C-alpha cells in the first residue's frame, strides 16, 4: 500500500497513546495501552504490502493482486493480542482480588536494599553468627 499521510498520522497517534498508557501503574490502563500499540503495529505491517484485488488466482490479472502476506501476519498478531488481552485481564482481576487494586507495586526486596544503601548500612547478615545469639 502506498503510504499516505492519514495512515501515518493514525499509526503515530496509536503508538504515542499506547506508550503513554503503558507507562501507567494500573494494569487495566497498561492493557488498553497494549491494545492501542498492537493496533498501531498491525496498521504498520499492512502498509508494508501492496494493495490491489483479492489475491485469488483467476479473479484478475496477477499484477493487480494485493500482497496477502502482511494480512496473514496481522491475523496471527491479532490472535496473539487477543490471548494476551485475556491473560492480562485475568492478571488484573486476580491482583484486584488479592490486594484490592490492580496497580503494579515496586519490588519489596529492591526497596529494602535501596533503603539500606541510603542509610549507608550493610545488611548485617555478614557479621552475625547464629551461635552467638543462642
Amino acid at each position, binding site marked *: 500500500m502506498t503510504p499516505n499521510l492519514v495512515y501515518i498520522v493514525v499509526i503515530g497517534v496509536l503508538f504515542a497513546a499506547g506508550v503513554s498508557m503503558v507507562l501507567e501503574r494500573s494494569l487495566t490502563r497498561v492493557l488498553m495501552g*497494549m491494545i492501542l500499540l498492537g493496533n498501531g503495529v498491525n496498521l504498520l505491517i499492512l502498509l508494508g504490502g501492496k494493495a490491489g484485488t483479492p489475491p485469488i488466482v483467476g479473479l484478475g490479472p496477477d499484477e493487480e493482486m494485493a500482497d496477502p502476506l502482511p494480512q496473514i501476519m496481522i491475523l496471527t498478531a491479532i490472535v496473539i493480542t487477543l490471548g494476551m488481552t485475556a491473560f492480562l485481564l485475568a492478571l488484573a482481576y486476580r491482583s484486584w482480588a488479592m490486594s484490592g487494586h490492580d496497580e*503494579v507495586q515496586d519490588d519489596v526486596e*529492591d526497596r529494602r536494599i535501596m533503603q539500606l544503601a541510603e542509610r549507608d548500612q550493610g545488611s548485617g547478615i555478614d557479621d552475625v553468627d547464629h551461635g552467638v545469639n543462642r
Partner: protein
Amino acid sequence: MTWLVPLPVVMPLFGAALTLMMARKPRAQRTVSLTVLTATLLVSCALLYLSTTEGAQVVAVGGWAAPLGIVLIADQLAALMLVVSAAVTLCVLVYSIGQGMADGHEETPLSVYHPTYLVLTAGVTNAFLAGDLFNLYVGFEILLVASYVLLTIGGTENRIRAGSTYVVVSLLSSVIFLTAIGLIYAATGTLNLAQLVDRLDALPDGLRLILQAMLLLAFGIKAAVFPLSSWLPDSYPTAPAPVTAVFAGLLTKVGVYAIIRTETLLFPGGRAAVVLLVTGLLTMVVGILGAVAQSDIKRLLSFTLVSHIGYLLFGVGLTTQLGLASAIFYVVHHITIQTTLFLAAGLIEKRGGSTALDKLGGLAKLSPVLAVLFLVPALNLAGIPPFSGFIGKLGLVQAGVADGGVLAWLLVGGGILTSLLTLYAVARVWNLAFWRTPHKSMPTGRLPALMVGPTLALVLFGAGLTFVAGPLFDVGDQAASTLMERSGYVEAVFGGGTP
C-alpha cells in the same frame, strides 16, 4: 532424514494436548511428559549428529518451498542449542515431579503445569529452528505465553506482582519485535532469513542500521542486557524453583541465540558491534555488583545470570570466529550451570526452609550432599579451573586479546573482574549458608531422591563439559565458521540456486 527437523516442535505440542486431556490423571501426565521430552532429547542428538556430518538439515513445512513457505532449519548452532535445552528441560521436569510429590502440589496445580511446561519447550525449540523472522516471533510468543502462566502459577500475591512486571516488559519487547518485522517486510518484501541476506545488503546503510537497532532492542530485552535487564531479578525469584531454573537456563539464552543469528546472518560487520561490546561490559559489571549486594540466594543468582549474559555479548561483539566459537561454548556452559544453581537453590529452600541468607547456616554439616551439589556448579560459574566456566572465559579472553583494540582490552579486564566478583558472591553464599552454626528454626528432614537425582545429573553434566571441551569447542568453531560465511545457510535453504 529431514523429517526429524519438525519433531522437536511437534512432539511437545502434541504432548501438551495429551496432558491437557489427562488433567485428572497425574500419573499418565507424568508418563507422557517424560516420554515426550526424552524423545525430544534423542531427536535433538540425532539432529546434531546429522548437521555435523551432512550439513544443515532443512525442511519446508507443508511442502511449500522457500521463500513462499516456512522453513525450519537445524544447522549446527541450532542443533547444539536443541540438545542442551532438551537435556536441561528433561532434568528440570524430573526435579519438578519430585518436588510436586514432596510438597503435595499445594502451590503448583499439577493439571496445568505439565501442558504449559511442554508448550514452553515447543516455543523454545521453535525459536531455535525458525528459518524466518515471523516464525521466530511466533516461537518467542509461544514460549512467553507459557512462561507467563508458569511464573504466576498458583496466583499468590507475590507472584502476581512479579508476574505483572514480567508480562508488561515482555509484551513491550514483543511489540518492538513485531514493529521491526513490519518495517523489514516493507523494506525488503520478505522475512525468510536466507533471502534477507541479499536483500538487506542492498539497502542503504542508515535504514539497515535502524532495522538492526530495533531487532537488537527487542532481543536485548528478552536476553536481559544491562539497561534493559532490571525486570529479571524482580520477576524470576518468586516462581517455584524448577520454573525459575528452566527460565534462567533457557529464556534469556533464546534472546542471545536470536542476537547471534541476526547479527551474523543479517547484519555482519555492522556498526552495532561497538554497542554490543559496551553493553556487554556494562551488563557484566553492573550485574555482578548487583549480585554482591543481595541477601537472598535466588535474587543473587538472578543477578549473576544477568551479569554472565555480558560474556556472551562480548564474544558476539568481537565479530571474530574465535570470539563467536567461545560465545557458543559459553552459552552451553551457562545454560547448564545456571539451571543447576537454581535447582540447588530449590534444594536449599527445601532443606533450610528459606533462601534468605540470614535465616540459613550450617548446611554443610546438616546435608553434605547438598553442599557438594551447590559448591561444584558455584565454582564452575566463577570460572575456577578445570571447570568449563574457566575454559569458556579463557576462550573469550584469548579472543579479546587477539582483537587487540582498546575496547576489547577493557572487556578482557571487565571479564576477569566479573569472574572474581562472581567468586566473591558465591563464596559469600557458601560462608553464610553452609558454614556458621545452624539456625535453630531450620526444619529437619531428608531431601527427596527425585529432586537430588536430576540436580546431581546436571552437576555431573556441567562438570563433564570439561572432558568434552575439545570436541565441543570444535563444534562451536565449525558452527561459528558457517555462521561467518553466511553462504552455507543460504545454500542449505535454496539448494544452491538463489531465487
